[in-house]
């Protein structure tokens, strides 16, 4: 799967102070998103990694808290050990060297379809309150539309993984009430939708934006705000969200990156290609 655009582009100049440790540590919003994504990976899980920020999130998780996680890449790679360098794409030479298995796309997609993938990562042009994603067309304010790159493997991951985690830049345009084109299925129009269309498992678990973290565990299968990023005001977040935000009380502040996490991110991405 592919993030339709670089989700972190708008946050390159924002820095935050990490106030949970003794040391004052600055981090970027992209780093906060990567770390939040990495923490969704549990040890021993099979992870459909996807492209862009999740490439880095998987490396962080494998090196820190999920050493036995297994990475699936839709070009046909399976890794039980992390790549030893920053990846720009899943097909980069450092991702091939030392892979556990290298084969056809059908091998990894088949195991995704048969239910062997625990968690998949997704990006999109739009995400709605039910976790449906659009990475095909988005409408601009003036009535014209923007053609996005398309699903890639996102629709397959959204259809077939046991749960999915989405990473999207937070803006009213990106987070509409309902997507204008349903590229990758979330919870459709609510409870029971997935089963009714023939999807037997899975669905969105978590939406990580540049302002907060949403969880899809409500009765109606819509996104509830679980935590808000440091220095983001609730009103600001609501103003930039296309639906009425429901909050899980008490609203947490998103756990900021630890020193270990930041040190590792900066070791892997010293030039800050993904985390500027």
């Amino acid at each position, binding site marked *: 799967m592919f993030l339709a655009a670089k989700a972190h582009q708008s946050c390159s100049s924002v820095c935050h102070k990490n106030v949970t440790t003794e040391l004052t540590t600055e981090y970027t919003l992209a780093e906060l998103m990567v770390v939040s994504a990495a923490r969704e990976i549990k040890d021993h899980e099979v992870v459909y990694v996807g492209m862009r920020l999740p490439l880095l999130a998987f490396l962080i998780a494998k*090196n820190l808290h999920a050493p036995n996680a297994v990475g699936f890449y839709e070009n046909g790679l399976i890794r039980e*050990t992390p790549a030893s360098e920053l990846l720009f794409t899943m097909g980069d030479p450092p991702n091939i060297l*030392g892979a556990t298995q290298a084969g056809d796309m059908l*091998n990894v997609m088949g195991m995704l379809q*048969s239910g062997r993938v625990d968690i998949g990562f997704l990006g999109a042009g739009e995400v709605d309150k039910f976790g449906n994603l659009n990475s095909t067309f988005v409408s601009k304010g003036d009535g014209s539309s923007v053609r996005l790159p398309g699903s890639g493997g996102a629709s397959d991951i959204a259809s077939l993984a046991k749960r999915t985690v989405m990473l999207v830049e937070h803006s009213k345009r990106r987070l509409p009430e309902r997507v204008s084109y349903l590229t990758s299925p979330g919870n459709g129009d609510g409870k029971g939708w997935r089963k009714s269309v023939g999807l037997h498992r899975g669905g969105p678990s978590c939406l990580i934006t540049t302002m907060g973290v949403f969880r899809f565990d409500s009765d109606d299968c819509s996104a509830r705000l679980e935590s808000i990023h440091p220095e983001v005001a609730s009103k600001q977040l609501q103003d930039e969200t296309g639906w009425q935000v429901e909050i899980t009380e008490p609203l947490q502040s998103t756990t900021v990156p630890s020193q270990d996490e930041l040190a590792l991110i900066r070791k892997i991405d010293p030039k800050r290609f993904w985390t500027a």
Partner: protein
Amino acid sequence: MTITSNPSSSTNSILMSMSEAIAKLTCDGSSIVMGSGMEQNIPFSAGHELIRQRRRELTLIGPISDILFDQLIGAGCVKKVCAAWVGNVMMGSAYNFRRSVEQGVPNKIEVVDYSNFAMACALHAAALGIPYMPMRSLLGTDILKNNPNLIEIESPFESHESQAPEKLSAVRALHPDLAIIHAQRADVHGSAHIWGGLGVVADSAKAAKRTLIVADEIVETSVIESDPNRTVVPGFLVDAVVCEPYAAHPSPSQGKYNRDHQHYTEYHAETKTHDGFLDWKKRWILDVPDRAGYRRLLGDARLLDLSVGESAYAAETDFGY
């Protein structure tokens, strides 16, 4: 810049003895796919341990099966066979199979007939997580008429050649409880390198609920990871690894040992009667405790004779960057 060494490679070994693996992964009534590598890499030592542990009511699954299925049938372990061909790949018929079907000796088994391709597609469908595979084979045959897992369907898309619905066959996905797979080499987590004809090996591991790898040799994870395109089964699918040299004897394991033609002709001659098979079983299975004992019975001269005479190494392949 190297971030880290392999954090998982030195832990989580699932290496165990064959008796432990068979005890752990099978029970009476298990359905087991074996011989997925066709005439090569047949896991005979695992089958012999199933016989020693007196497993009963097994369902055996595989496109062909060679004399391994015949031995399990003769030993009374089997309730049902789902296969395309049960015999002796060198000599033709296998006598225990015939005795069971024709005379109920030692017990009557149910045979569900497939073709090789239908079996391959049944395992492929299961590996892919879909309920069936469409095919163009077997239309008009009695195999299709008699196997409830094979039906005729119509294509949901119109044909390019005609407007009439296109007739197809369809085979139902088959999900064995266990796949037993022979590999030339594996690491202690189960990631396995296999070379030669791969038959339905990869799909059988993905179709099965659990997988047992029997390897001629255990290697460091770094050997597996040096050539990921050689990996046919990734370790996370595997529940146990057993290391036994000559585990596939009398079938060949390319680059490790050759086919023991004599063993096939002798088996054919010595198992013409049920009593003959019982003698054979006592000598080659019951009276040997494990594969090491079996190798002693074969003897050093025969092992040497079967070993690789002239090595032929694969061309150098660079995974560097």
